[in-house]
């Protein structure tokens, strides 16, 4: 019984929609930043807008926050049309890229700020501030000023400040881009568990695919202001819908060719792969870890490739291969001291199940 309910919850079928973007468009003069964007976010979901800079992801986030008003289209929060509602009445919490903490207020005052604005009683405020600071483990710094804190601590204050008001949606604008790599991973995990514990509906914006893949329930890959693909991290990585998604998320080799009658894909220079899908021109997407050593894939025809470069990445070695006229990237492991050198030959096999086909370049 319980398991069934959880399944339903997990599949999102019974979870209500919290945020709706409907045909959102934003023009700046003649420049269209977001042409037509639609998306629904369900309760407790962590959705990520992923894309290169200038793809309109931040503009979209800011339209939800109410800092930018869309040229056309609608935004709904819990069923209420907020398109023309000013930011201060939207019930949306936001953590800015630079955290935007009030420099003239202590940590506690920063967190308390929103609570004062909604007219909460002093005692209630104090206990809420305490509670929030405890959650982000900053009670001991309550009386410090923001500039006396480290970047990671500032981020947690910004988060506590946004969450103190218990907003309907939490927005994160490139929340980790100002932190160094080590700290980034740790804070990412902390943030993840905090948001999960609070079951907070969250929309976050990033250009970092690792962040998106590890944090998000659903990823919206954006390109030129439109959602190129919406799906779980696995779907985005394993089954990219377009060439753009394939290239932007993770590494891949792209082979141009034709899907022929009889379930075969043939590249322009004669490489063959089993294929299904519409007959015609197509691009094959092959992730580096799906190019294997021939002996690891018995039953799949082996091919001899030439190693052009060999890069060391700790656990894995990344090889750039030339196979006929095509280039392939391969991630694999070699025993100590047996790493092949550029110019050598290697027998490889491409895992046929893992190959995806996307529409070719126009």
């Amino acid at each position, binding site marked *: 019984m319980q398991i069934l309910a959880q399944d339903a919850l997990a599949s999102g079928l019974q979870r209500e929609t919290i945020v709706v973007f409907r045909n959102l468009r934003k023009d700046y003069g003649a420049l269209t930043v977001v042409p037509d964007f639609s998306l629904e976010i369900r309760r407790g979901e962590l959705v990520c807008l992923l894309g290169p800079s200038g793809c309109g992801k931040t503009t979209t986030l800011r339209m939800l926050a109410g800092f930018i008003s869309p040229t056309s289209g609608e935004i709904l929060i819990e069923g209420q049309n907020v398109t023309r509602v000013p930011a201060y009445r939207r019930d949306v919490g936001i953590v800015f890229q630079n955290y935007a903490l*009030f420099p003239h207020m202590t940590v506690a005052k920063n967190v308390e700020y929103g609570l004062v604005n909604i007219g909460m009683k002093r005692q209630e405020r104090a206990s809420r501030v305490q509670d929030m600071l405890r959650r982000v483990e900053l009670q001991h710094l309550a009386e410090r000023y923001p*500039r006396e804190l480290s970047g990671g601590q500032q981020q947690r204050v910004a988060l506590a400040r946004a969450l103190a008001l218990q907003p309907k949606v939490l927005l994160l604008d490139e929340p980790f881009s100002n932190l160094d790599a080590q700290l980034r991973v740790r804070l990412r995990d902390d943030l993840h568990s905090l948001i999960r514990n609070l079951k907070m509906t969250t929309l976050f914006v990033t250009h970092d695919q690792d962040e998106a893949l590890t944090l998000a329930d659903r990823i919206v890959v954006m390109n030129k202001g439109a959602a190129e693909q919406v799906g779980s991290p696995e779907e985005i990585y394993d089954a990219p819908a377009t060439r753009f998604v394939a290239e932007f998320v993770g590494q891949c080799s792209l082979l141009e060719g034709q899907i022929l009658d009889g379930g075969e894909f043939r590249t322009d220079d004669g490489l063959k792969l089993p294929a299904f899908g519409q007959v015609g021109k197509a691009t094959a997407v092959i992730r580096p870890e799906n190019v294997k050593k021939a002996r690891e894939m018995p039953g799949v025809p082996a091919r001899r490739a030439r190693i052009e470069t060999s890069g060391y990445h700790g656990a894995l070695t990344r090889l750039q291969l030339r196979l006929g006229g095509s280039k392939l990237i391969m991630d694999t492991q070699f025993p100590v001291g047996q790493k092949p050198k550029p110019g050598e030959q290697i027998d490889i096999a491409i895992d046929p199940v893992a190959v995806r086909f996307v529409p070719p370049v126009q």
Partner: protein
Amino acid sequence: MNSSTAESERRKTCWLLLLAPALLTLIVFMLIPAGIVLRISFYPGSTTIGAEGYSLAQYVKFFWNPLHLSVLGETVAYALIVCLGCLVLGFPVGYSLARHPPAKRRVRMLMVIVPLTLSLVVVVFGWLVLLGRQGLINNVLVWLGILSSPQQLLFNRTAVVIVLIQQFLPFIILSVMNVVMQIDPFLEQASTSLRANRVRTFIKVVIPLSTPGILAGLSLIFVMAASAFVTPRLVGGPRAQMVGGFIYDQILTTSNWPFGAAMAFILLAVGFGLMAALNTAIIRPLTRGLHVQ
């Protein structure tokens, strides 16, 4: 270790060399004359010729006379009203300049600065033409039927205040612009996302963060307004007296240098005192969390 001390010595020498011209000018043309004037203010008599000894006679004379005190009070009142007027008119302009993109800011800033390049006397004469009985404002008011005949708009306190505000407005505009440019615009957005409307954001975020700049601009204006001399003379007439005019009379008309010098130092002390009070009462507590000190 030796090289580092030598390096810091060299740095110090460089600093001194760079500071020297300004410092020298300041000492020769400002501090030494000011010292001489201070000395003169302690002479007992009403002339410097053959004067000797030290006495507080001039200061006693000033504070003993209700007329002098009322002029001093009026001067301070003028300066405060001018400050307030400049703030109310200048803040919105400075704020909007700061929030404009640089390309648009340039022309607007020029329009703010240009009046400063005109000689004060020219500006005041401009106002005389504007406010005179046959001036533009009177003509327009009569033409509109608001006035039946031209009125005397000059030679009263209001005229002095208006002209002083016009002169000092650029200082507050530029001060506000500078300080607001340093306020992260995201702070205002953060405030709105935390349920504060524009007014509240302005009061709780923009004003506290721009107060250091505002007060810097205002103290400048206060000092300049309190020592104004040309404007009250030409626009104010006999009814609008300020200390500056009094000092001028004492020194150039009556040739009573000691008394004039004493009044000059009283005015200076009032200015310094007010600024020190502002600094300890408002700026320091406000800037505890900020980088500026």
